[in-house]
């Protein structure tokens, strides 16, 4: 089970990492070609905006969430002495969060279908670039986050919330 989770996180990190490296390389290369060679790389701007940024930001969403880096206010819940009450509050919060993102994931799924149906995309230099692949990655990223939230819920109930991945 943990192996599968690690593997999926790893794949998402690689995808996001490729997009991040792409951002760095494409932007630097663009500055070089413009300043030294006096031309701009065609479509680079659109690719950065529509493909690389969203993938870099979202692909590893679940992993980032689960790493515990997302800031939250725990000053109040930490003061609660009653272990059972604290568990109930933590559990309730996680379930509400899960439902929120389940809703988001479902409609991102609908949106990727809509995106295919409607031919959403951008057209430059006579080429049509579809957006549905990115919309679909977004859906998968949110869905995977939902799965990890559910996992966190189970851990919280079992009282094992401390050992988060890094």
């Amino acid at each position, binding site marked *: 089970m943990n192996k599968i989770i690690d593997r999926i996180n790893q794949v998402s*990190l690689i995808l*996001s*990492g490729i997009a*991040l*490296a792409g*951002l*760095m*390389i*494409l*932007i*630097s290369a*663009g*500055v070089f070609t413009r*300043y030294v060679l006096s031309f701009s790389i065609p479509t680079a*701007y659109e690719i*950065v*905006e*529509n493909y690389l*940024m*969203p993938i*870099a*930001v*979202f692909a*590893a*969403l679940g*992993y*980032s*969430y689960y*790493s515990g*880096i*997302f*800031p*939250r*206010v*725990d*000053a*109040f*819940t930490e003061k609660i002495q009653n272990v059972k009450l604290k568990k109930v*509050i*933590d559990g*309730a*919060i996680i379930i*509400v*969060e899960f439902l*929120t*993102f389940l*809703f*988001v994931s479902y*409609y*991102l799924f*609908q*949106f990727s279908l*809509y995106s295919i149906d409607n031919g959403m995309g951008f057209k430059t230099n006579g080429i049509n670039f579809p*957006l549905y692949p*990115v*919309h679909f990655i*977004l859906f998968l990223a*949110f869905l995977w986050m939902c799965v990890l939230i559910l996992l966190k819920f189970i851990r919280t109930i079992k009282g094992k919330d401390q050992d988060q991945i890094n």
Partner: protein
Amino acid sequence: MESSIALIIVLVVFALSLFGGMNISSVLILSGMVGIYLIVGIDPVINLVQVDTFSTAASYTLTTIPLFVLMSQFIVKSDIVKYLYSLIFITSRGKSAILGVFTVILGGFLGAVSGSASAMSAALGQFAVPELKKHGYGETFAASIAAAAGSLATIIPPSIGLIVYGAITQTSISSLFIGIIIPGIITIVLLSLIVVFIYYKESKKNPTQNTEHGETKRYSTRNYVISAATGILIMVAILGGIYSGIFTPTEAGGVGAFITLIAALILGKVNKEFIASSFKETIKITTMVMMIMIGATIFTRFVTLSRLPQKLIETLGPLLDSPMLIMIILLAIFFVAFMFLEGAAAIVMLVPITLPLAESVGYSPLEFGIIMSVIGTAGLITPPVGISTYAVSGVTRISSNKIFRYTMVYAIFISIFGSAILLLFPELITWLPNSMK
């Protein structure tokens, strides 16, 4: 539904989920969705969730977030900071009070190559805290200095907050970057003053601690020369590249990351672990920041639909005759918002509401943006959401609640005196941008 009832419900949802410990980004997304639903129904909720998630991230301008964070990671992981730090401590031997000031100034310099306060605070936490401790600083006090010094990354350009502000208010980013130089220096001076003051206060309380000067670890001269040279080169390349028009401030993120990577390669620091951990950290921080921005976008849609801005303006309307009072109220609102929110999120959410008011009492978007940024810097070290404090707490294993006791004092001091100086003398902001035209 009546928007005032919706507002109350949203406030309850917001408070319960926030204080219940839900992630800030989720709190914003959830309460924004609930609010939009209550005012205009479910279809707009679905539409905004679908469109805003993608479009907030699909932005060329915001590439600075991942790329400046990546650059910071490369800088920290190639030990450039560590050697520079040790060099400064050795050359300033003897005067311990000065070392706190040095840390603050170093934070300012590091801020000039990075826009990421959390990355810089974490870096300073790793290198400055042990050194400060050796020179007679209490552990928590040292940690608080690192947190505050790192938070300067947001006020010393390049600054993500200002880029976001410039983008949403159509204010020239170069004017903002130039205009904040003097206020940035004022902030550094204010922070240095309060650090020196606390240092002497603590040394009176606990005189023995401050006389035990330990040995600073010395590295080879070669390390110092190379790291100092590399650090300066990177800074010159980035600032020079922006200033001479080779690349834009946005592109500086990409170029900065790239040349820092080359520098790290030349220093022989690059291996699989270097790349993997730099990328991993960057992705985590980027996702976190962007999710908060998405949450803020959706929450802001609700605020817009509720017509709260108009109501706020109407409420504050009678006060329009006293500009100073309006500005103090607005800045107080920002101070509270920055306590609870990530900087960019607070800016995205509050600026469209507050800027028209500030403009109506005679402050330009440039002046307002920069005074607000000073308050925003303070927000990075205030509880309950103080990213810089958390970052230092994370690397030093010192309780964040203890660090907040110091940093909250700095934040209030900087906010009150910094904004007072700038409100009374707005020329400090406008003089440089105007004279460079």
